[in-house]
């Protein structure tokens, strides 16, 4: 079987097929091992230049991409919006053209506007990876969530996953909905109705109004971060009440018919959407998610920049030899 190409850019999971998503997850498997070696480097992207273009502050996603790039031997440059031409009013299209003129191979972009990654991808020849665009998609986050679920359950098809919290403003939720439903996972969304987007059922999910319903139904909870500014803009009254009504607490989990796997894309608000004893508890895979993030991003970068290859014989593939 020839491996399915991802195309030039990874903009989101909505536009990918189940086979393509599966292929990324399968490609990530051998890359997990790279990070466990003494010398954490393979030469797969040697000589490739990658720009990490972050228009929004980000710690873990940017660092995770940077590690993925470096462990693939790519040359990387980080551009943050603060202190760069971006903050001097240069528009996205000019930034893109200037980067292109420097003959780069790939751009990883995080931007506050939905559609910004696609906008860039349509205007430059380099590969574009969406590291989060507005409220639209965050595909590598959903891929690492899926890889973590698959690691734990040994499969994805037939699982029940509830996405909990601020669905309205969440790109993580959208990417998870597309990716999970394509791979046969039953998806529910749960949160205050004021943070639930109109027509969300049409994306193929069930809406559960109460966190107790989600806990009773699901095999795994993916608990979204509650942005504290949602209070100021009047979507919810207070974080205190949010925790009391929608918080995932050990007490609530104790009433569940089975143990639930706990995911969180981070950064967590302990005591708001998730209690510490849940986050640090035996069923939490929040740190394995972070570890898997690097493997998934290595897989995405590798598949986009190189010719897509069948990874069945990954160990013998040229790019996977130790560089030591």
């Amino acid at each position: 079987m020839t491996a399915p190409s991802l195309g030039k850019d990874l903009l989101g999971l909505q536009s990918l097929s189940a086979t393509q998503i599966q292929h990324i997850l399968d490609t990530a498997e051998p890359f997990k091992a790279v990070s466990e070696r003494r010398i954490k480097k393979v030469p797969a992207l040697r000589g490739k230049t990658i720009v990490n273009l972050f228009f929004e502050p980000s710690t873990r996603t940017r660092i995770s991409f940077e590690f993925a790039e470096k462990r693939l031997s790519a040359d990387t440059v980080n551009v943050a919006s603060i202190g760069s031409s971006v903050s001097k009013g240069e528009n996205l299209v000019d930034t893109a053209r200037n980067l292109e003129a420097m003959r780069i191979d790939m751009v990883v972009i995080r931007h506050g506007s939905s559609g910004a990654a696609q906008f860039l991808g349509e205007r430059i020849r380099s590969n574009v990876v969406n590291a989060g665009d507005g409220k639209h998609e965050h595909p590598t986050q959903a891929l690492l969530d899926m890889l973590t679920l698959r690691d734990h359950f040994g499969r994805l098809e037939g699982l029940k996953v509830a996405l909990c919290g601020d669905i309205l403003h969440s790109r993580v939720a959208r990417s998870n909905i597309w990716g999970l439903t394509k791979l046969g996972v039953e998806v529910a969304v749960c949160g205050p109705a004021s943070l639930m987007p109109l027509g969300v059922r049409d994306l193929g999910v069930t809406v559960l109004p109460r966190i107790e319903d989600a806990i009773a139904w699901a095999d795994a909870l993916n608990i979204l971060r509650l942005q504290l500014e949602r209070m100021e803009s009047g979507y919810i009254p207070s974080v205190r009440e949010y925790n009391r009504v929608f918080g995932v607490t050990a007490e609530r989990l104790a009433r569940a018919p089975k143990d639930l796997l706990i995911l969180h894309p981070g950064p967590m608000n302990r005591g708001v959407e998730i209690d510490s004893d849940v986050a640090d508890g035996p069923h939490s895979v929040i740190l394995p998610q972070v570890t898997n993030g690097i493997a998934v991003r290595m897989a995405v970068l590798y598949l986009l920049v190189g010719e897509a290859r069948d990874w069945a014989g990954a160990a013998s593939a040229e790019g996977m030899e130790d560089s030591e």
Partner: protein
Amino acid sequence: MNPILIAGGRVIDPSTGADDIADVYLVGGRVEAVGRNIDVPAGVRRIDAAGKVVAPGLVDIHVHLREPGQENVETVATGAMAAAAGGFTAVCAMPNTDPVTDNQAAVGFIVRQSQRAKKARVYPIGAISLGQRGEQLAEFGEMVGAGAVAVSDDGHPVVSSHLMRTALEYAKTFGIPVADHCEEPTLARGSMHEGVVSTRLGLPGIPAAAEEIMVARDTILAELTGGHVHLCHMSTRGSVDLIRRAKDKGLAVTAEATPHHFALTHERCDGYDTNAKMNPPLREAEDREAIRQALKDGTIDAIASDHAPHHYDAKERAFDEAPNGIIGLETAFGVAMRELVEGGYLSLSELLFRMSTQPARIFSLPGGSLAVGGPADVAVFDPAVRWKVDPAQSFSKSRNTPFAGETLVGRADLTVVRGEIVFERGA
């Protein structure tokens, strides 16, 4: 101004319902005669209109011509030329210029630029409030004296119900409509219609309710004051219901709809196409259908383009950062023909009524009729031509249209304003 005989066309006068093969004879800036085989002196310019439609020029009561302030995007002259090329003989220019058209001198400037351009007539609309800030009434009386035909804060909703009330009351003295951009601002903090597409795209949505709340308010204030409220660019099925109820009560409420709202839906925003970004936003298929039905039954009086030119740089941005609006003067007739006439909603005569007679009536403008003695504002249309929209060929300075590359039906071949040919296709 030399006499013109437009001979042998299908003459449609939607003001009377007349629809027959005839000649139209224009002398001295007036319609001299309409009839078969009109005898004219030797040497009169004769235009053969066989196979064409001869009708009163179209009237667009809602355009943005950007002058003064953004002359790199459009001017009164280029906008009036684009209008003429679209078969329009008169357009009404919204006051959201820079500086705002909120006083008699600013109104007079638009009138003078229009007279210099000598293309389609351009009637200024004055602002409701000084600087369109929604606080203090502008001087309606002086603006009307200088040539304003209506008042509007278009681009901005009139948030204060008190201001809207006093504007409706005060405008009665001058017999002008108060045209409102209906949008409840605290609900309208989005960049497209709120629905399944905005959810998919992760774009903040503007619910239909943001428009309908203000439509309801304005019809209530029309009842309170007896003033004439004109509702701009109606986009939702709920608005149509509210207008229908107001008209059933006999209130002085009129309304317009744009070609893009009866042609396109929010699905068009897929792919973050900034040429599908406008305010009010493109809505759902059910809304589009309600607008079409409302144009058929007269709940919505008029078609207006909301011609809104933008520099190409401005639209070359992420969707939420791009400005609202599209150009529409040269595509309005072709889109309306395709969607409403070929679509089976209106006859050609009914379409011309919604694009010339009725808009002229509700804004008390000359034109919209071929009555003998009336102004020689006439357009000749090729009703059957199928043509592809090429924005580069536009007479507007701007290129922002979602109809680029689409095939439209029918367009103006000749436009006459005050008895002068201002546009002749291929000439």
